[in-house]
């Protein structure tokens, strides 16, 4: 077996040194009748070529985003990732290292985490950011728990514009923890009255912008009312590129920002691994979940970085920890931070303008298709269409025409009476030809 260096001669020699006759003598703590008599009913070892054939055949049964005009978003976005990013994250010293518990030989990881934290703080308009959560949805759920710790209240109000999967993750975790959640009904056109839901019992109001239907939301009035009642504003986003063009949540009064960073540097990968971004204000830092890299000096007085404020974390605080998270999204942070460094401010804002322009062009083209209506007043790179037919069937039919058109709202919200709505996203990868293919296929199937 190509991964196992020991030879049978080595094994015999080592067993002799240990003082046992067979390797099974090392397993005698396992009760005899519990030891597996026969090997598992699974295939035998395979060489590289056979594994490639087996998995390659599976991969070939999927339609990849780059192979068709592609307009699916709703929490994960098809962006171009520079070749440099993928090369660098495969450097052995990054890929095969562990959590930087020995900082003297992990300065590479610690410095990029420090850079990542700074970039996320800048992007969100917040003071501090952590070294990542699993994804945007778990970041949002942790933000709610953190708000409860800060306010010593246990009721979260969720806007109806939040991605339904995110709302479900927040609800699941809150239910388990015994906390209250008030989830407003789906709010397709951003007209809900969030202010009416805020009172002195509320710990936090959670609002997503751009919301799941694509609308941009001005958070200022919600922030003001929340703060007047001693509650926090948790701002959520699923499309990080939007922050290159749209007002940062920090500038609109957010106290905690939780978002998905997949769009920068990370592949779609069927939903994971992604990278949860988590930022807040300096004064709440000791209530934050997750790892933090911080600056310090070494014994020779040189600048260096370490994991810090770990008395918040499970390995020190155990059942009193701010979160149970341990392994996070390290390498996805690296992909994010490299891509963001390549973009810089000028590149990110331009990328955002390209996304917006492509979405505007697509919205205009689709609005001209008979029977189709664009519901959004505002959007960044994603918007909601009302179709004259059930959206799920339209998407299936368009897939037969080799166009992946978007996410039917009933896939996210079954039984909500929104069967004719379709979420459509457009990024820098879409060309004029893609848009034309979309319009043609839609016209055809309607």
């Amino acid at each position, binding site marked *: 077996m190509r991964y196992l260096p020991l030879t049978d001669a080595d094994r015999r020699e080592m067993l002799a040194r*240990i003082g046992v006759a067979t390797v099974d003598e090392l397993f005698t703590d396992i009760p005899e009748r519990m030891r597996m008599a026969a090997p598992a009913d699974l295939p035998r070892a395979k060489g590289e070529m056979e594994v490639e054939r087996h998995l390659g055949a599976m991969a070939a*049964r999927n339609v990849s*985003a780059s192979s068709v005009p592609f307009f699916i978003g709703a929490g994960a976005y098809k962006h171009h990732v520079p070749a440099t990013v993928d090369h*660098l994250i495969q450097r052995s010293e990054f890929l095969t290292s*562990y959590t930087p518990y020995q900082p003297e030989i992990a300065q590479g990881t610690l410095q990029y985490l420090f850079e990542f*934290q700074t970039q996320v703080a800048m992007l969100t308009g917040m003071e501090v950011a952590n070294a990542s959560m699993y994804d945007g949805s778990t970041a949002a759920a942790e933000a709610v728990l953190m708000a409860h710790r800060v306010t010593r209240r246990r009721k979260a109000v969720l806007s109806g514009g939040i991605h339904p999967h995110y709302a479900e993750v927040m609800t699941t975790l809150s239910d388990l923890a015994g906390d209250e959640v008030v989830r407003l009904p789906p709010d397709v056109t951003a007209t809900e009255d969030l202010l009416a839901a805020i009172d002195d019992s509320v710990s936090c109001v959670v609002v997503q912008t751009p919301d799941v239907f694509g609308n941009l939301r001005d958070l200022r009035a919600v922030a003001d009312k929340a703060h007047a009642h001693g509650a926090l504003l948790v701002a959520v986003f699923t499309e990080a590129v939007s922050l290159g063009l749209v007002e940062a949540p920090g500038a609109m009064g957010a106290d905690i920002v939780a978002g998905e960073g997949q769009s920068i540097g990370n592949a779609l*990968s069927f939903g994971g691994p992604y990278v949860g971004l988590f930022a807040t204000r300096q004064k709440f830092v000791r209530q934050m979940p997750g790892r933090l890299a911080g600056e310090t000096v070494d014994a020779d007085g040189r600048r260096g970085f370490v994991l810090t404020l770990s008395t918040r974390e499970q390995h020190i605080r155990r059942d009193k920890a701010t979160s149970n998270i341990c392994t996070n999204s390290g390498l996805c942070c690296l992909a994010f931070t490299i891509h963001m460094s390549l973009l810089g401010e000028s590149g990110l804002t331009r990328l955002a303008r390209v996304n917006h322009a492509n979405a505007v062009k697509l919205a205009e083209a689709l609005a001209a298709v008979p029977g189709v209506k664009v519901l959004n007043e505002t959007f960044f790179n994603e918007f909601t269409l009302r179709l004259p037919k059930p959206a799920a069937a339209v998407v299936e039919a368009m897939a037969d025409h080799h166009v992946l058109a978007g996410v039917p709202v009933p896939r996210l919200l079954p039984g909500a009476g929104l069967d004719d709505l379709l979420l459509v996203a457009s990024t820098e990868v879409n060309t004029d030809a893609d848009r034309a293919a979309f319009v043609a296929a839609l016209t055809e199937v309607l």
Partner: protein
Amino acid sequence: MLNRQGRPTTPGAAVESAHPTFTGNRALQQEEPLIFEFGRTDVIGVDLDEPAPVADRLGGLKRKDTIGLPGLSEPEAMRHYVRLSQKNYGIDTGLFPLGSCTMKHNPRLNERMARLPGFADIHPLQPASTVQGALALMDELAHWLKELTGMPAVTLSPKAGAHGELAGMAAIKAAIAARGETATRNVVLVPDSAHGTNPATAALIGFTVKAVPAREDGTVDPAEVAKLAGPDTAAIMLTNPNTCGLFERDVVEIARVIHEAGGYFYCDGANFNAIVGKARPGDLGVDAMHINLHKTFSTPHGGGGPGAGPVVLSDRLAAFAPLPYVRLDDGRFSLVEHAAVSDQSPLGRLTAFHGQMGMFVRALAFMLSHGADGLKQASEDAVLNANYVRACLADLMSLPFGNRACMHEVLFDDAWLKGTGVTTLDFAKAMIDEGYHPMTVYFPLVVHGAMLIEPTESESKASLDLFIATLRDLAFAVRDGDTARFTGAPYHAPRRRLDETRAARQPVLRWTAPAPVAEAAE
């Protein structure tokens, strides 16, 4: 500053380094500034045309401030991150005996497979008809996990071990709710040797944690469990093999005691690597167990993540798995993403999508490469390697539970360092100078000054022999009173010991622009 176990958190006095250089660089070791110190906001390393102007649809919410993000050209970015990488130790650098973390070889075939466009470039919300291969892969991975553990069900969505603990304990909580016992059954028993994520997870979802002390030999005594178990017992969270590197030999009896009390058996499967192909958790009475694909099945740790933590479930808990899951009807796969009214499970999603697909591909590639035979051999080699290290060091370093067979990792304590002026941490730092990543230190908490060594199956005998010879040399140096070799270490790493106290007292968690320097007065 010392922590509870005498681990210093502030370095000692500075040592002048010999032969200073102008740049601070040392040949291949390059000092590297932060991107904020040399990047420029008007530099772009990604070519993109400015779009033709459109009437914007931003409704007045256009960003007004400047962000301040520095940009790098492609060569600058390449050099910056390559230099940073050179300050890191990875498995590919050398032996990485970090106990409990299973730092085994990461085959590059798995990276290649995960990057196939059919896996890496598909969206989680594509129509099921366009992702049949991806769903088939999840189904095949599920089959392997169920076969290897002897458990009837698995949920793939958890994002890491701790997230798997959450899924498993949530299923237990839901099962208790279905029995109408939520109010009364709320205590979770957690042995003192458990990883911090176990009590943190139980507490997170409202359970009360009760500690189970370890007995003399480092394992859990079923009699102790019987004393603590009762009508308020929701579950026990038992790590097996445990964090002392020992198989809980009374696991079957512990399971029986817990089940008799009406509770569930959660197994922390972080150490499954020792027993794959040798024993099946399903035969041991386990109701739920997470599997860290980033440990046992070799998906790269990536400097702290990402991981993946699928959870296998017993029949009693299978109905309480979180959404979503893959279903097969008449040869077509689909994803069940919403609970039907008829479903028992009140548990919804724990993450936005279906789990760590990128890790699923790598883990399955690892399983296919090994086959059932290779996985069993890997477990045996991992255990053999750990015992070889134990046998070759037992005369010099202290084994808290006696010189008996261990599983895939061997635990030493610091009794042998007593009175030498050298701590576990000092010893670990001296290993860095010798070119090794230290073992896990100060965990588990049940022994003083713990040193947990897990060589994994990826080490050759020659590699282990050099490692053992090195530790023996260090141990003799301790005996000979050469304390400076330890207390000042590391001397040869990119950084000397770092001041953790200062980092925590005056936290600097991000870069900020330096205040403008006032013009010097003439």
